[in-house]
């Protein structure tokens, strides 16, 4: 008769605290909370816009309040971490080949950064004119 009795080690709920890479992963994933909250807030901003100038002004007041600014800074930090991790991983999801050779991953990542910077420049330009 077989003496086999395999032992399964349980995975603790805090598995993601055991390694720094796991913690970074969890922080990356949790940026979605900030991004989702920001998107939701913008949706309510558009609701205010639809309700008229007075409602919109109230929304802008919320945006410019201390709490609003702290929130935006938090979302910006989360968004930057999301972008950095997303751009680093993009070349592995979509490896590019040009002329039969691989495009180095770093170029794909830098290309993404360039595009993001361009977007920022355009938006700020539109805000200034």
């Amino acid at each position, binding site marked *: 008769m077989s003496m086999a009795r395999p032992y399964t080690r349980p995975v603790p*709920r805090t598995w993601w605290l055991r390694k720094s890479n796991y913690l970074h992963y969890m922080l990356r994933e949790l940026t*979605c909370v900030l*991004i989702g909250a*920001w998107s939701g807030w913008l949706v309510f901003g558009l609701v205010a816009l*639809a309700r008229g100038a007075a409602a919109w002004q109230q929304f802008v007041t919320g945006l410019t309040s201390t709490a609003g*600014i702290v929130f935006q800074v938090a979302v910006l930090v989360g*968004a930057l971490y999301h972008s950095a991790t997303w751009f680093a991983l993009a070349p592995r999801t979509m490896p590019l080949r040009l002329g039969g050779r691989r495009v180095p991953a770093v170029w794909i990542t830098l290309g993404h950064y360039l595009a993001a910077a361009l*977007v920022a420049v355009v938006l*700020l330009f539109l805000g200034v004119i």
Partner: protein
Amino acid sequence: MARSHKPLLWLPFAAGGTIAALLLPGLLLFTLLASLGVLPADALSYSRVSALASHWIGAVVLFIVLTSMLWHAAHRLRMTIQDLGARTPPARQWVARTCYGLAAVGTLILLIALAGVS
């Protein structure tokens, strides 16, 4: 085993994540600087923003950007809650329905808002 319907959720996640990654830093910088008064006062004025949102191109862009980010966040949040402890099938189902339900509600409200602006 059979092929999953997950692509219906993964493609919006991927699209939303890419849009968020490319757009959000610039967009947040814009709103932050506007909130701090660094940009001209009318950057966030009612007339400018409603002009943008009521134009059909602006409305389409706003819809695509916000919807994709909502569904990106919903999918990622669902997977993360699973990572953090929701393991049984009924728990997973509840988490999925809640996350995507929130995104669906947000999408609906967005549609109504955009319709109301134009």
